[in-house]
């Protein structure tokens, strides 16, 4: 390596360091300022650009200057994605169920069925998960948005069609809906005292005042 080549290597090092450390892209003049007069900055940059081509970091010309950027094809791999299992709240699953059965349905109608206000957060979460989507507007005063379930919903719950959801009568037949009259039935024989509303609870730790229609508890 002769002197010129040594200089050249040293200049490349300097440009490399400059562009790395700079918070903003640098143009040819800004780089030339820090190099001996007469240095062919453009040629050096071309070489440096070639040297970094195909690497994890590339030298690119952007917004009027040179800067290092991580290679665009690696962007996805840089992001660390972690899947965290979450539980849907009771309000969430009930709202989803009502939308599934009654679609298209407005928020006011959901509230009417649930007998409780539906927070927009609940709909947001369901929409974010991708299970519900606005499907139109009800042609009534205020033209409220109507909601329905999505293809993702069908996929997740293993349904071919939303009409595949079992009807009310079928739910009753499977015990998922029962008459549940309040009674001191024969099932109480093992219990010294059984208040009518104290049905077996789910043992999940989430907000379960969510009494299951446990198949042994309701009226025969």
């Amino acid at each position, binding site marked *: 390596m002769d002197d010129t080549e040594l200089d050249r290597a040293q200049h490349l090092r300097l440009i490399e360091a400059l562009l790395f*450390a700079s918070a903003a892209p640098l143009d040819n003049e800004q780089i030339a300022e820090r190099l001996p007069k007469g240095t062919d900055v453009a040629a050096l940059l071309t070489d440096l650009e070639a040297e970094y081509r195909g690497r994890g970091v590339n030298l690119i010309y952007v917004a009027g200057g040179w800067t290092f950027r991580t290679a665009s094809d690696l962007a996805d791999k840089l992001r660390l*994605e972690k899947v965290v299992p979450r539980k849907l709240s009771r309000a969430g*699953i009930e709202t989803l*169920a009502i939308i*599934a059965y009654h679609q298209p349905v407005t928020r006011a109608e959901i509230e009417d069925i649930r*007998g409780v206000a539906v927070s927009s957060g609940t709909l947001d979460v369901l929409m974010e998960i991708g299970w519900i989507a606005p499907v139109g507007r009800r042609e009534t005063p205020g033209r409220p948005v109507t909601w329905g379930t999505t293809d993702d919903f069908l996929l997740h719950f293993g349904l071919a069609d939303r009409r595949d959801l079992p009807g009310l009568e079928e739910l009753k037949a499977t015990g998922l809906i029962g008459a549940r009259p309040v009674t*001191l039935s024969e099932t109480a024989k093992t219990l010294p005292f059984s208040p009518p509303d104290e049905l077996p609870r789910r043992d999940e730790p989430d907000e379960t005042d969510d*009494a299951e229609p446990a198949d042994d508890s309701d009226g025969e």
Partner: protein
Amino acid sequence: MSDAAFEEDGREAAREGDELVVDLEGYEGPIDVLLTLAREQKVDLTKISILALADQYLAFIARARHLKLEIAADYLVMAAWLAYLKSRLLLPAPPDPDEPSGEELAALLTHQLLRLEAMREAGARLMALPRLDRDVFGRGAPEGLPRRLIPKYDATLLDLLRAYGQQRQRKENAVLRIVPAELYSMDDALERLRRVLGRMPEWRNLVTFLPPGLSHGLVERSAIAATFAATLELARTGKIELRQDRAFGPIMLRSAPGVI
């Protein structure tokens, strides 16, 4: 001896030519003065003459006093200690063997000086390291490494159907219907017992008064409880007598003697 973290280094100002100018402002305490004086000896600190150093220090303080400079107490304590050290180095060993010898005290002082000197050098080496944002630089515009948490909701179809079922059920059950319970009441038992009141001269087991055809379980138990409660009521009003020979034994009853 100001100790502010950012001050002009007063050391140079305190020295003029070879003469140590008495200006305590430039020093970081007595050890610093001793270190400066020790350097005047221009030898390795480990080979320094502590005796000579003590003399220099004492002369330094004497000059300061002569100039009526305000001298902080720790400088005077050091002077007293060095005077003591000097006497121990010059005089024969004291009778008390527990007291450290002059040589031991001198070694201690040397150690102290060496240790501070070592820390000064360490500080200088530290400051001479290539420092971030002064000598070396990190990436000027790091893109950052995003960490995205993807929530995964794991509701099942069963959850969905249950939720809907409960929802509908809650709606239906908004009106509370209490199914008439077919339980035996105390009134029934009283009625039943009154009919046989006067006709039981002999002790009879309480269970023989239960209505026929009871199913086992709750209804039967309610009949026993109601009948027992009724017998208590009748015993209270003197209509019958009750007897139980042992705990959990059969409860026996008969008409009170005056009732027959």
